């Protein structure tokens, strides 16, 4: 992954200083420069869509995460890919992602949110597939894009439905929806919209059954995994749920869905964690478990769930990001992420070891860490809710596995006798790589020891989720001790028996074939097979069959209109002058010639005569413009068709039988003739004719209405058409190989 290909390239100045961007934002958030505010830029007023932005407590917490972890990532990445020529591309994508993420959490207008939301999906695709020579990275990127892209579509549909039900709805309205859109909550359309938005949020936050892309995304470079797939982007889904929660918390299906999906995801991911040997994938599954826990928390009753949610959101980012950095450092140093080979690494990587221990303490929820604050809040929220049995059970299971994972990431990897088989470099790792994990983990420890600086922010954030009620972070010692002993005891047991449990769970591998990941793989193969079958069935290359399909489909399209059309009246067959008669005779003659001719060229000339005859009919029928055009088009058509027909080789495969051909031709010709006669029978609406006849000279200085419409009234359409014509001409050139060009090229 981090192997340097080709010569070492020094990093440009902007890459080295990119961390200043998140640092500036972080400073602004930390010093209170971003008070609660709203501002809007008009976008499409007719659709009630603005570029609307809003800052409140939850936004500030998200901004602090994005910018704070962002500083670490932007410092770390140039060290991780030092000397790699691809480094500027990585940094550019990361900076773009940073901006998209900031936009997504300050967005107030749903369409503004959607825009930034999709941007994060696309950037995630590019970042997961960053190592584009690696087929696994490309597959993982495609998986991530298909799932989150599908979620984006669901989000779009959901937002449209919500807007239908509550016009002009903004995210900030959701806190007091009864005041701004009183009827929305009783409208089933609104609920359908919320359900679709929830699907979008589930895909983004890797909730079961949309979780499988996240562990796969671990093929991305470590800074990307730490930033997108643990600390920020995957939090966007739970962030959106948190925005919806104030409006929906009283609704049963919403609560039950969040609780059930969140709890199941958390437990499922915890079990999957135990099946992995790759430290990065272990961390990825534990991230999925954390996201499940966050979803579950939102399903609990207010108001304490808001505090628990905010605290856990912050704590998780502060311990998971350092652990990912550490995994990257291990990979860099030892060339492997397999926990079977990694041991005693504390001598080679002292800084990483320290960071891992600090982060691990927080992850395990030991006292004096931020993790324990989150755990307390979760415990209190559960205790005060009319909770379901499985929520408590899921929490305990997730807590036990979290302790075990923390122990694996610290004790197992960094302590014990070193593995002599691993070739480790003698020189210490650069500060850019060893400092960020340590710094972020220290921040987590600091906040755990001293809640003061963050308590206000967490309560503000919680207030954005639960606007009513009194909020306090109070510690209940007996509850805490009980849950702590349970988690640490269970976790220690699990850690001790890790390999044995791993072995047991491996026997469950047979169940994977009914899992979502396997379904995704099979769907991918199925889509390819299905597309192939459809193409083979429709693109057979037999010209006669194409024409038959066109004729039958055309007839079928016309049929419903003809069935309702008035019968042609005698007026339509009114006798006309000699010119018209001559045209008609030419048309009939041409048709006869086409039928009688034995070879293709003769038939073509017959068809051309039909066209010429129609031109004469137009000429005497009062449409000289159409006549001219028809004449020229017919001439060019005959030339082109005659040229093309020289290459025509009759199909060897069986064509449509004569009876079928006769039927298709009769149906198509008969119905179209009937339709054109029926048009004349209906009363003619002259509104357009009158307008153009009257407006042509005064508005466009032209007497030829046809031309005036083309070059004046609908000039933009014409411009578009000739552009298409030019592009078609251009595109056709490479398809037609010049004779002899092949020999010339080889």
């Amino acid at each position, binding site marked *: 992954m981090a192997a340097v290909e080709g010569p070492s390239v020094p990093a440009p100045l902007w890459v080295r200083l990119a961390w200043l961007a998140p640092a500036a934002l972080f400073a602004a958030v930390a010093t209170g420069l971003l008070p609660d505010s709203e501002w809007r830029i008009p976008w499409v007023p007719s659709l009630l869509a603005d570029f609307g932005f809003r800052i409140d407590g939850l936004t500030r917490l998200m901004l602090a995460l994005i910018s704070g972890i962002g500083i670490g990532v932007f410092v770390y990445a140039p060290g991780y890919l030092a000397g790699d020529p691809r480094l500027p591309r990585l940094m550019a994508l990361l900076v773009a992602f940073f901006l998209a993420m900031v936009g997504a959490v300050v967005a107030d207008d749903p369409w503004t949110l959607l825009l930034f939301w999709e941007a994060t999906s696309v950037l995630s695709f590019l970042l997961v597939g960053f190592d584009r020579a690696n087929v696994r990275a490309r597959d993982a990127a495609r998986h991530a894009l298909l799932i989150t892209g599908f979620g984006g579509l669901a989000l779009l549909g959901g937002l449209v439905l919500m807007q239908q039900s509550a016009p002009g709805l903004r995210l900030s309205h959701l806190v007091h929806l009864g005041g701004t859109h009183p009827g929305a909550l009783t409208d089933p359309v609104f609920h359908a919209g919320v359900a679709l938005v929830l699907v979008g949020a589930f895909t983004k936050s890797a909730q079961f059954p949309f979780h499988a892309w996240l562990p796969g995304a671990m093929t991305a470079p470590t800074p990307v995994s730490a930033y997108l797939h643990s600390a920020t982007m995957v939090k966007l889904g739970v962030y959106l749920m948190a925005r919806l929660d104030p409006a929906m918390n009283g609704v049963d299906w919403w609560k039950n869905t969040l609780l059930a999906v969140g709890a199941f995801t958390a437990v499922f991911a915890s079990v999957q964690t135990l099946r992995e040997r790759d430290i990065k994938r272990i961390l990825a599954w534990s991230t999925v478990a954390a996201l499940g826990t966050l979803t579950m928390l939102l399903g609990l009753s207010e108001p304490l769930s808001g505090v628990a949610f905010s605290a856990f959101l912050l704590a998780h980012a502060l311990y998971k990001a350092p652990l990912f950095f550490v995994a990257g450092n291990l990979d860099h140093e030892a060339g492997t992420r397999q926990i079977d080979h990694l041991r005693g690494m504390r001598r080679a990587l002292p800084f990483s070891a320290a960071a891992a221990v600090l982060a691990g303490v927080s992850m395990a929820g030991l006292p004096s860490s931020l993790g324990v604050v989150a755990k307390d809040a979760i415990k209190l929220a559960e205790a005060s809710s009319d909770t379901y049995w499985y929520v408590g059970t899921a929490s305990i299971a997730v807590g036990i596995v979290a302790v075990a994972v923390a122990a694996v990431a610290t004790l197992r990897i960094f302590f014990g006798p070193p593995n002599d088989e691993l070739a480790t470099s003698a020189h210490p790792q650069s500060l850019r790589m060893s400092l960020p994990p340590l710094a972020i983990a220290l921040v987590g420890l600091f906040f755990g020891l001293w809640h003061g600086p963050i308590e206000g922010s967490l309560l503000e954030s919680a207030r954005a989720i639960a606007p009513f009620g009194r909020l306090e972070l109070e510690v209940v010692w007996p509850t805490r001790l009980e849950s702590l002993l349970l988690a640490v005891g269970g976790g220690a047991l699990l850690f001790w028996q890790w390999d044995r449990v791993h072995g047991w769970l491996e026997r469950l591998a047979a169940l994977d074939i009914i899992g979502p990941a396997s379904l995704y793989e099979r769907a991918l193969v199925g889509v390819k097979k299905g597309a192939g079958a459809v193409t083979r069935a429709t693109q057979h290359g037999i010209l006669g069959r194409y024409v038959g399909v066109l004729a039958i489909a055309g007839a079928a399209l016309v049929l419903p209109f003809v069935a309702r059309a008035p019968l042609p009246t005698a007026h339509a067959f009114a006798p006309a002058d000699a010119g018209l008669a001559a045209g008609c005779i030419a048309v009939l003659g041409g048709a006869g010639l086409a039928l009688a001719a034995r070879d293709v060229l003769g038939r073509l000339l017959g068809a051309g005569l039909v066209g010429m005859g129609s031109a004469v009919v137009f000429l005497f029928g009062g449409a000289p413009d159409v006549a001219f055009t028809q004449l020229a088009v017919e001439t060019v058509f005959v030339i082109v068709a005659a040229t093309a027909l020289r290459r025509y080789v009759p199909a060897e495969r069986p064509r449509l039988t004569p009876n079928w051909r006769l039927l298709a031709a009769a149906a198509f010709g008969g119905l179209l003739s009937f339709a054109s006669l029926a048009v004349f029978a209906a009363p003619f609406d002259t509104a357009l004719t009158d307008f153009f006849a009257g407006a042509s000279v005064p508005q466009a200085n032209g007497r030829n209405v046809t031309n005036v419409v083309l070059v*004046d009234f609908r000039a933009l359409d014409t411009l578009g058409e000739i552009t298409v014509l030019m592009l078609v001409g251009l595109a056709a050139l490479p398809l037609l190989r010049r004779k002899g060009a092949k020999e010339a090229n080889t």
Partner: protein
Amino acid sequence: MTPGEPDPKAVEGQSAPGRPAPSPIVLLATGVLYPALLLAAVLLTLRGHHEPGGGFVGGLFATVAVMTVALVQGPKIARRRLRIPPIALASVGVLLALCSGLPALIAGEPFLTHAVGYLPMIGGAWKLSTALLFDFGVLLCVLGAVTGFCLRLLESA
């Protein structure tokens, strides 16, 4: 009917080597038809705003002119008489149509609102309009795109 190798000495009124020689009557007719059809194309476009005609028909007439030469004397000679590569003609046509809309933008009107001016000339004032520029753009685009396609079709056969 296969186009031969490029022959630097091939001139108007002759066919490229390797092709059956066309009959002198057809050759003569081509010599007359080519300029006549091109002239007709220009006239149709010029008068299009008031009388039947316009850039699209004009473009098709010009195409027929080029294709007449191509069928009788071969695509090589048709290309030579055209001088400018067809796809370049088409691109210039689209650009011309695009540019005809710019004066309106400068004047603060909607894009492609055509302006009219009268040029005093012997025998009465000539009416000039950006619409005419637009129509010639259409002519060039149709001519370029269709002849480019047809000539390549002839060459590949």
